[in-house]
């Protein structure tokens, strides 16, 4: 998976492209550390380029959410589609996260 990172003031924009699976956990390690240091106020993760998401990746997103909640950071997931959207529906991610279609 490719991850484009854009930091503007206290806002972190992540644009993910490709398949989001377990192997991508290393991309999120520094991000999780930054969240713990309360570096950002807002995080937006754009998922429009993600064609497939596995259960480990869902676990990573849940960890990002827990950390964000703990540090009062607003987290928004953007534009899930196809398999990702279906997975979000089945796992009730729409109730847990702020998701902008």
């Amino acid at each position, binding site marked *: 998976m490719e991850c484009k990172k854009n930091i503007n003031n206290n806002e972190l924009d992540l644009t993910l492209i490709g398949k989001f699976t*377990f192997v991508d956990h290393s991309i999120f390690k520094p991000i*999780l550390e930054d969240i713990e240091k309360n570096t950002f106020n807002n995080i937006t993760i754009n998922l429009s380029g993600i064609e497939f998401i596995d259960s480990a990746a869902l676990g990573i997103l*849940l960890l990002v959410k827990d950390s964000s909640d703990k540090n009062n950071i607003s987290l928004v997931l953007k534009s899930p589609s196809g398999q990702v959207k279906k997975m979000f*529906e089945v796992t*009730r991610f729409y109730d847990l996260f702020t998701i902008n279609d």
Partner: protein
Amino acid sequence: MKPDKQAISTVSAPSQDKVMLIAARTLQSVACDLPTSASEIESKIVQLAETFKQIAISTQDQGAAVRKIVDIVNSVQIDGEVISMRQSFEIVNKTIDDAVGQILFVSKKAMNMVYNLEDALESLSSIDMLVKDVQKITKQTNLLALNATIEASRAGELGKGFAVVANEVKELSKEIATLSKNMKEKIEIINNSVRKSHNTLQDIATIDMSSNIMVKQKIDDIMRNILTQNDVLIDNLNMSSSIAAKNANDINGVIVDLQFQDKISQHLTNNSDALLVIIKHLLNHLDGKDCKMKIDINDEELQEVFSKLKLSELKQNLTNLFLQYDNISNPESVIAANDSGKSDEDDVELF
């Protein structure tokens, strides 16, 4: 009113009287037949009412059977408890939701553990570097102690006490070297275990559960289809049940209507009685003429009457009346004529 056949002389009947006699005998035949017909109708109607009653009972049973099917189709039995299809769908849904929730929980915890083990490996690597630093310092301390021992021996008697201290330092650095070597070995063991755990966890976390999660959607679709089909089936069964109830009601209405058949019987018997009175007066009038009329079998009016009587039984009744009371010419041919038409004219027209 029975006239004596032998005593009365035979004369040709005047046309009006003849017609009147034919009319009287025809009426008499019809009037005599009416009570029999009425009684036959009555018995048939009683039979019909009984049959309808049985149909009404069967239709009600059919309705009850359909309602029972609705109950069966609409429910399932789980652990001896009867619950509706919709409830069972909710149970299945909740069970799958729980399973999906557990998969997510495990995925989150596994990823958390992966990150924690990576942190632990990093910390172990730092400790390893620190131990290496300690080993470096120990080596230098050892060299220093060696140098001190050499310098102490040069100083001779004065350096004796210093040589003891230098030796102690040397022993101390040896112990630290052994200790740091042990520490390094222990760190290596821990490092290996953590790395193994990390690899195992990675194996577990990379098992993709997404297809298991998507099972929920498939089951959801299947259950939704089953429920829709069930609803259609139940609607149709309910419709069938209400049609059966309506039919039973209609049939009961028909049975009530049929019970008024005794009124028809009374009418027919009454009419027959009235007709017989008229006939009696007519025949008395003809008897008063004191003559026995001769009726020809080929008589036009009589043939017309016979042609209208389709049933041989009625023809026979009329013929018998003529044979019994009147002077009819060629009576054998009358009987033969009646018999010849029997086979085809007696056929009952079926609908």
